[in-house]
């Protein structure tokens, strides 16, 4: 298989294009997808790259099919992914649930748009509920919330690796702004950087006669009695928790002497950092905390922050979806003040955050 990216290259492109290249760099072989704004261009770039680098593509009849065909690709032993947004993410909950139960490493890029329902094709952070705990299960997914094109690239590669290493579905959570904006990033061949790409393995169709040369693959997601489910669920949860400690990521700055900590994720975290820096320049002691993995959520890290400073301003382009994860992580941990800037479907600028905090006096 041709390696597309030979040397490190600084490029200036849209987030969707960066994702397509990252998937190639990660060794993905198959994309199944369905049109929905604002992720369409991932398909556009992939279909153009596909024949040159032996990649496959199928545009399915809808997102349910995109999810299930991707599961099929993975069962066949190929690194595969899809991309979606909004109402598409809603449909993806069914195949994601199957992947959770059956430990299938499918990878999904979600470029958040307004919600619920059709809302806008543009931007929001309103799919956090869905990507973390959608589906009829316990949220056995890996979710990376990116804030820049470099991260879209880095974490798409990481998502494939972590999904295949730990056998949980992995989601890269971007948004319409990241998808459509142009900024610079460094593209690289992960193996040149010492990142060992996890090799895929087939779930079905391995060589040999089933029953004689090898055990047959009997894959199921249904159980007969409650106790069976209980055992399976507890066991999977144990493995999920085990993995959590190894993959959790968060970022925090200037917490030590902070009197207020801004909490944000994804693209809004950039505004949070910019606001923090401006306020610090004015002598205000502000810090910031950003979960990078929303699942598993960096609870211990956040609890440590709260031990140092427990006045929080949480900022998100949704009505409390990040806040929900935040509150759960700090259960029983004392929080002195908790304020919010909720802007569902609307971008948040550093100016707004600075204005809000200065008005607090």
């Amino acid at each position, binding site marked *: 298989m041709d390696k597309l990216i030979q040397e490190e290259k600084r490029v200036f492109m849209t987030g969707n294009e960066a994702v397509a290249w990252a998937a190639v760099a990660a060794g993905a072989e198959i994309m199944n997808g369905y*049109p929905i*704004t604002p992720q369409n261009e991932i398909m556009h770039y992939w279909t153009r790259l596909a024949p040159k680098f032996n990649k496959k593509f199928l545009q399915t009849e*809808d997102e349910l099919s995109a999810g299930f065909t991707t599961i099929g690709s993975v069962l066949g032993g190929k690194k595969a992914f899809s991309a979606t947004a909004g109402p598409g993410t809603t449909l993806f909950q069914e195949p994601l649930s199957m992947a959770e139960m059956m430990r299938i490493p499918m990878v999904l890029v979600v470029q958040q748009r307004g919600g619920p329902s059709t809302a806008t094709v543009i931007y929001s952070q309103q799919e956090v509920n869905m990507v973390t705990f959608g589906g009829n299960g316990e949220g056995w997914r890996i979710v990376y919330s990116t804030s820049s094109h470099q991260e879209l690239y880095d974490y798409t590669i990481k998502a494939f690796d972590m999904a295949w290493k730990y056998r949980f579905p992995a989601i890269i959570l971007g948004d319409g702004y990241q998808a459509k904006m142009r900024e610079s990033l460094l593209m690289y061949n992960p193996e040149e950087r010492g990142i060992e790409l996890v090799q895929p393995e087939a779930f079905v169709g391995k060589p040999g006669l089933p029953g004689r040369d090898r055990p047959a693959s009997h894959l199921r997601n249904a159980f007969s009695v409650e106790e069976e489910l209980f055992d399976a669920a507890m066991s999977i949860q144990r493995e999920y928790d085990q993995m959590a400690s190894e993959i959790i990521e968060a970022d925090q700055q200037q917490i030590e002497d902070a009197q207020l900590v801004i909490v944000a994720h994804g693209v809004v975290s950039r505004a949070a950092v910019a606001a923090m820096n401006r306020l610090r320049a004015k002598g205000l002691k502000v810090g910031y905390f950003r979960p990078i993995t929303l699942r598993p959520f960096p609870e211990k890290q956040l609890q440590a922050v709260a031990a140092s400073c427990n006045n929080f301003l949480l900022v998100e382009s949704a009505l409390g979806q990040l806040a929900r994860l935040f509150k759960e992580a700090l259960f029983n941990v004392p929080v002195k003040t908790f304020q919010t800037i909720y802007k569902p479907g609307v971008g948040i600028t550093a100016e707004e955050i600075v204005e809000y905090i200065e008005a607090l006096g």
Partner: protein
Amino acid sequence: MVERLAMPKSWRLESKPHKFCPGCGHGMVLKVLGEVIDELAIQEKLIFGVDIGCSLLAWDFFDVDTVQTHHGRTNPVMVGIKRARPELLCIAYMGDGGAYAIGSQHLVNAAFRNEKIMAIVVNNCNYGMTGGQMSPTTLPGQKTETSPYGRDPKETGSPTQGPEMVAAIASPGAYVARGSVTNLKQLKRFMKKAVENQLAGNGFSFLEVISCCPTNWRTNAKQTWAFMEEEMASYFRVGELLTAEKDEENS
């Protein structure tokens, strides 16, 4: 004789000029529909359903109760309304993607159950609103954003023949036809018959319309018309596939 107005009475003035692209087929289809609504005097009891895609831009197009649904879900929503309120007239309006891809299971089942609604499918061989991806009716060799080297029927099948499929599975009482924006007089005739079929309570009424998308086809006026009249017409045959008379002939 009905006076020929420039703008159908059922059209809503406040939402004009409309938001469709210059040269879009939707404007023509909706003009014909507007005239049919006026001539059959169904404005009051008509419920108009629009899908996701360019059809959604018609959500406030008429002075008619309109529901914008989810992608592919317009048929089942209209079915629900019709079954709750059989005296209303329900028309589902969607594109080729909404009808034959994500909505195909709903279309097929509405046809199986002979639901007494009408579905209009505006077929322009691509997903327009999302930027021109391949759709079930994209022609072999046609370049779209997700078939940049041309659609290969060996890989992705041949263009979906919607009315043929519906006609094959429909029950007696259904009306199935395909018209084109290149022949508005004929289109209006088919549309009227489809509506009358629902008014008579006979069964499922289905009308596909060959339409155009010069924006995503990247064609000028001449090329656009040629694509419909020559290329599309060779795959999608215009005419009535199933009518009450044809039913009688076959039974």
